[in-house]
């Protein structure tokens, strides 16, 4: 029985302190990423989210270099970059080339900082690919506090954010401060990316921030049901990923990335085929 076996595995896992920490940290980050990510996907700004992660790499390695905890460099620089991107407006943040050049530059700086702090090759791997099994209690507390602030901010701007995401021209005409809302949202995304990066790493933030919301949007079309399902899918994939990693000895981030991709493609393929069958007689 797979369920019995899974239950036995989880039971064994929970005996370890670092496993309980991993479940707690992954749970917090997954819920925040799933909720924030829903809007990121809705707005078609996933590339901006990706870029924020890379910029965060420079922040994290820079922080290590000057003797700070990497998370503060990560959060600080991603939030600053998010606000910067938002203030430059749609004209810049929507342009893939500009964002792409900046993210490469940021990765380059990250490499430079590491170059001057060679002792931390391990640190580099865990920044890039995550290391949820090394999370400690203070880190969980930091994730919870940042998560609560992020979700409170998201709740505060949610209504104009939805309007501006679905119908930007009309929202502007109706007097919604579209620029402010979009900047505030990118700052929120920056914190979400930082949380997600603690679990799956900077290079794999998409597996928690984009995969689950995209899967949820394929399954349901209601706004609230989509938002809630996105968080549930992210949580399920994060926890299941840890369980599979424990059982197989594969890296946790790989398992989460795999589940994220599977979830997306499984929900995508049959729907596309159905749509093609439905629409072909119309032609």
């Amino acid at each position, binding site marked *: 029985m797979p369920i019995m076996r899974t239950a036995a595995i989880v039971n064994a896992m929970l005996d370890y302190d670092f496993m309980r920490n991993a479940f707690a940290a992954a749970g917090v980050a997954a819920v925040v990423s799933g909720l924030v990510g829903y809007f990121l996907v*809705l707005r078609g700004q996933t590339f901006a989210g990706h870029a924020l992660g890379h910029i965060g790499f420079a922040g994290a390695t820079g922080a290590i270099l000057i003797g700070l905890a990497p998370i503060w460099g990560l959060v600080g620089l991603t939030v600053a970059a998010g606000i910067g991107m938002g203030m430059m407006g749609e004209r810049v943040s929507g342009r893939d080339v500009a964002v792409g050049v900046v993210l490469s530059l940021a990765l380059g700086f990250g490499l430079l900082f590491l170059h001057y702090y060679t002792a931390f090759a391990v640190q580099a791997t865990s920044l890039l690919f995550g290391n949820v099994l090394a999370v400690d209690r203070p880190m969980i507390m930091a994730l919870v506090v940042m998560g609560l602030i992020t979700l409170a901010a998201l709740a505060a701007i949610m*209504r104009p954010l939805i309007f501006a995401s679905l*119908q930007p021209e009309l929202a502007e005409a109706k007097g919604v401060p579209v620029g402010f809302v979009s900047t505030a949202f990118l700052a929120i995304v920056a914190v979400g990316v930082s949380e997600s990066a603690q679990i799956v790493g900077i290079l794999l933030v998409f597996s928690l921030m984009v995969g689950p919301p995209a899967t949820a949007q394929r399954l349901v079309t209601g*706004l609230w049901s989509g938002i809630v399902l996105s968080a549930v899918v992210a949580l399920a994939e994060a926890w299941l990923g840890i369980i599979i990693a424990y059982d197989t000895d594969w890296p946790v981030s790989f398992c989460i990335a795999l589940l994220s991709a599977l979830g997306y493609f499984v929900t995508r393929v049959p729907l596309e085929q159905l749509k093609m069958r439905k629409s072909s007689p119309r032609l």
Partner: protein
Amino acid sequence: MNVVEFDQATLRIGNHLVLADISLAIKGGEFIGVLGPNGAGKTTLMRAILGLLRPSAGNIRVFGRTPRRGDALIGYVPQVRTVAPELHVRGLDFIASSVRGGRWGLPKLGHVDRKMIDESLAAVGAVDLAGRPLTDMSGGERQRLLLAQALLGEPGLLLLDEPLISLDQRYQETIIELVGRFAGERNITVLFSAHELNQLIGALDRVLYLGNGRAALGTVAEVVTSPVLSKLYGSDIDVVHADGHVFVLSRGRHIEHHDHLHADHAHSRDRQRHA
């Protein structure tokens, strides 16, 4: 009473002069077809009426006041974006986002709002769109949805920016018919921009032709003439009447049709300028 008044108004986007020294008056309940070549300022004119762009000289009055953003009396259907993210969101939530969409906090949809949306959808014959995601809708269905949304809250003025673009003939006629009927029943003033004059001829009261920074407002017989259009297009224009249709030709080429073929390209230019 005049619903829209331009008094020697000049509109610029940055340094680019779009419309110079425009004076016109649109009366309550009029259906105005807004025509002109791409980049002539159709969208800019609507943005000025919405209060999104102030005239650099002269005055604009809407319902007797200086235009202000968020005027509940104006229903607006913006031009369809050529590059829009895929929206896996059902029609109901799409429309609901516009109901007091500027307030802070979590979105909430009360019974009264829900009823209002249902009635508006029913009025345009689009009840089934409430439960379907936008990704599933055809261009015509989306326009219907947008029209239902624009009619919420009993507007006195409807601004429809190129609602016929990318629709097939049958849907174009449906949209024109729907708009004409509502405008008549509810005494709504309509500004309807389009590329083709002929489809609108049956519905419109007057036509507003833009071109070369100028504007001409009048009946089709007054405005759609060789001298007036030659001035607006800045080149020799012939107007040919045939079988109740009016064809605008430049050196023998049907320019409205020509415009249409390049509509997407020109719109992306238009959008960049507005961004």
